[in-house]
């Protein structure tokens, strides 16, 4: 089988360090006494909790429902009792808390009733719903809900489906082991994706430093009689970036401004395909994942770990050595320091590396940029990182965007090669978040301006209507005073009266509707105040509201004072 491969520019070749963690097969981690399952584990909406404290949950029971289309459900990883639904520290560099369901496990591991589906006999829409409700998201680390990506573009035919088994990050071997041991499941999952997207070709890309995985996948494809092409791609970080792998396998370059289906190609991780197959064929939602535990540990390897297992229990499985000074979640190129080991394993946790000063030495002091251009040569998106660095540093964000800051995928190649040891990626993250926050501020200001203009317009309109009404009333009075010149039938004189009443009622209704619209707009424009509050804060607000209710009822009797108050408070806000 000859497959023409394309090249992406840039990239780096760090030592892969994969050997230690592929010696042992995937081991099943024990059920911990407590699981902390964050509800928000994917890109998109925040799933709403479906359980309360004291509820008994079964393994695979949905505990968080997707709140919108770009969102994915969350499930109980084992059976037990919900002992808390509260904010717990998240597996995130910030160490901030996130709403989580805490389950005391009962050790029975009792499954909920499972239904298997034959996806071929279902409507595609229904298959996507099942995937969403099974919590299937991108397990390569991006955790984007998969069902959203399984809709082909209306105008562009789907040419290629790319399956990502490249796993280019050093140290990480969870996909490698999954492909070696569960290739058949992966291929069956890929077939589901294929049936939904109907691409002309299916290409499975695996870096050529994983010959066992390539062989296993090829064997599985042949055994199942599929026509998928398993392709070994050159080992070069970040070959496993979706855009880089698409480029290598298809020659297509997906720019930041486009989504890949618009170019007739879509990409999924191998572990995602596997979990999709489990969800469809066995009714098993995503409740565990393969995690590589490696680095400065006694027993590097891969474990299948229940989501929600606290990190310290996971790490204990591998036995960190005495000089371990940090734990990195993700790979060494794009991962981050775990701020708190009580944070749980989530769908994005593909690898945990125990770091030591010898393994990850502290960086040399940062020197000035000498414009050597090594970063530009290493950038897989062919950006000019040193220019972006100057612009980010000087807060010249307009220029940074002109130089395509948002095409940066933060792969870290530029920082890796920089002879001045400049943390370039951090500068770019800073610039991006500054731009986002400025845009948010601007949108809010625009919304406020629109509200203000709308109110002015309404005031003007009401004034005009009032004037018109007064004029009409005056005219009517004048007409009444005038004696009728002849005996006219009374009907026409009376007839206009109900009409004016009707018109006024309609006007009032229109005004009420406009006010309602304005109120809704206000609410829509200002979700920030009450959004993202902690449970404690919400409770406090509820109590305050309760106290305020009788006072507000009193104020209803003096509407003018109330109106004046609200006006004042509005001024204060401004």
């Amino acid at each position, binding site marked *: 089988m000859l497959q023409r491969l394309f090249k*992406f*520019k840039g990239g*780096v070749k*760090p*030592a892969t360090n994969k050997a230690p963690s592929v010696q042992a097969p995937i081991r099943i981690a024990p059920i911990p006494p407590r699981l902390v399952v964050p509800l928000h584990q994917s890109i998109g909406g925040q799933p709403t909790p479906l359980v309360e404290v004291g509820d008994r949950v079964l393994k695979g029971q949905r505990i968080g429902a997707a709140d919108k289309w770009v969102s994915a459900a969350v499930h109980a990883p084992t059976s037990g009792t919900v002992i808390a639904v509260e904010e717990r520290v998240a597996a995130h560099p910030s160490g901030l808390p996130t709403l989580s369901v805490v389950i005391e496990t009962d050790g029975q591991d009792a499954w909920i009733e499972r239904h298997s589906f034959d996806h071929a006999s279902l409507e595609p829409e229904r298959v996507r719903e099942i995937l969403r409700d099974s919590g299937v998201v991108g397990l390569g680390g991006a955790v984007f809900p998969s069902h959203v990506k399984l809709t082909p573009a209306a105008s562009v035919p789907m040419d290629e489906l790319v399956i990502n088994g490249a796993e280019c990050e*050093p140290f990480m071997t969870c996909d490698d082991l999954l492909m070696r041991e569960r290739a058949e499941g992966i291929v069956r999952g890929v077939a589901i994706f294929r049936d939904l997207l109907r691409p002309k070709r299916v290409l499975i890309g695996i870096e050529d430093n994983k010959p066992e995985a390539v062989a296993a996948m090829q064997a599985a494809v042949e055994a199942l009689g599929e026509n998928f092409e398993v392709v070994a791609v050159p080992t070069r970080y970040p070959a496993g970036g979706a*855009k880089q792998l698409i*480029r290598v396998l298809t020659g297509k*370059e*997906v*720019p*930041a*401004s*486009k989504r890949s289906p618009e170019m007739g190609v879509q990409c999924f991780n191998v572990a995602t395909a596997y979990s999709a197959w489990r969800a469809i064929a066995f009714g098993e939602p995503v409740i565990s994942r393969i995690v590589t535990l490696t680095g400065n540990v006694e027993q590097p390897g891969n474990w299948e770990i229940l989501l929600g297992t606290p990190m310290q229990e996971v790490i204990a499985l591998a036995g960190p050595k005495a000089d371990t*000074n*940090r734990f*990195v979640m993700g790979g*060494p*190129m*794009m*991962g*981050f*320091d775990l701020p708190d080991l009580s944070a749980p394993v989530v769908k994005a946790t593909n690898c945990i*590396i125990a770091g030591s*000063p010898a393994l*990850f030495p*502290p*960086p*040399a*002091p940062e*020197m*000035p*940029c*000498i*414009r*050597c*251009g*090594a970063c*530009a040569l290493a950038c*897989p*998106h*062919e*950006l*000019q990182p*040193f*220019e972006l660095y100057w612009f980010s540093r000087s807060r010249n964000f307009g220029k940074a965007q002109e*130089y*395509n800051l948002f*095409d940066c995928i933060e792969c*870290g190649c530029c*920082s*890796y*090669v*920089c*002879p*001045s*040891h400049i*943390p370039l*990626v*951090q500068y770019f993250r800073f610039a991006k978040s500054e731009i986002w926050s400025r845009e948010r501020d601007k949108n809010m200001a625009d919304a406020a301006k629109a509200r203000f203009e709308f109110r002015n317009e309404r005031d003007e309109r009401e004034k005009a209507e009032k004037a018109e009404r007064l004029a009409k009333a005056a005219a009517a009075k004048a007409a009444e005073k005038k004696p009728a010149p002849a005996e006219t039938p009374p009907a026409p004189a009376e007839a206009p009266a109900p009409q004016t009443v009707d018109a006024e009622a309609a006007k009032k209704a229109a005004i009420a509707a406009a006010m309602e619209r304005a109120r809704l707009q206000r609410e829509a424009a200002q979700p920030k105040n009450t959004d993202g509050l902690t449970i404690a804060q919400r409770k406090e607000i509820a109590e305050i509201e309760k106290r305020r209710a009788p006072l507000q009822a009193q104020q209803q009797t003096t509407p003018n004072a109330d109106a004046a108050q609200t006006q004042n408070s509005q001024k204060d806000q401004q």
Partner: protein
Amino acid sequence: MDFITPPYLTQNVSVRRVMLQVLAALIPGIAAYAWLLGPAVLMQIAIATATALLAEAAMLKLQDKPLGPFLGDGSAIVTAWLIALAFPPLAPWWLIVVGTAFAIVVAKHLYGGLGQNPFNPAMIAFAVCIVSFPALMSQWPPINAQANFVDQLALVFGQSPRLDALSGATPLDALKTALKLGEGSTSVATVTADAAVFGRIAGHGWEWVAAGYLLGGIWLWGRKVIGWHVSMSFLAGMTLISGALWLWNPAHFANPLFHLFSGGSMLGAFFIVTDPVSGCTTPRGKLIFGFSAGLLAYLIRVFGGYPDGVAFAVLLLNLCVPIIDLYTQPPIFGMKK
């Protein structure tokens, strides 16, 4: 736990490493220079290095910057060596002190220090001194004057009168002057027949020094310390214009090989125009920069009043870098036509 931002891995590279490799690459050229033209150049290198480090330290102190990492980065030493190689080896000691100090203090630190200088500091030193002290900057030792180290030292430190016999012109300058004096009656061939001054392809001895620089440059390219774009386009620019004029009138214009191996061509191509700080950064920009510098260097050295044109050509192009970079931004991933 030390604070590390991802990536946790870095390549074993540093500014210091880059600069040390550049210094190493200069060694073949310096060896040939010292062997064929006397050891005075080593003295000049020592004076320039000491001056550069002192000036650098003083400027860092004034700015409250740490001395260790910046003195140790080697960039001042590279500047010093390039100045020493561009100046006449028997120039009095204070000349190179003035040039080097000006390069470090004004051309480098007053513009913001490492990475901020718009002009190549070594070329600034050359330009300042050739404008201020044209006579001293044009006196080169004739290749056949086998002065010993003691005599050369005495000259450098002003302990002996500056004998005319010990100071002549560079082969490049000699050819230009001879052609000008013997207007119409002489040709390149007759002038370069003088084996005392001229060798097989360029200046006697000098051609080997140039070959040393070429060797070092190729090594740097092999180590990926420099790219090919700017060096090759510089040589191409010079070859093209010298080749065209030579084909048109071989009696009046020396062949391209002569020019490539004369004066500062090789040093310029691999050690001067390759300076990343003051040069272009985009691939197309580098080609434009190098080609134009090669072309200009030739025009200045052949038609201008100075013995060589590399310094002025590079400085003129340094001025154009921002605009060249602006208009040669390469298309990014996914945006190619």
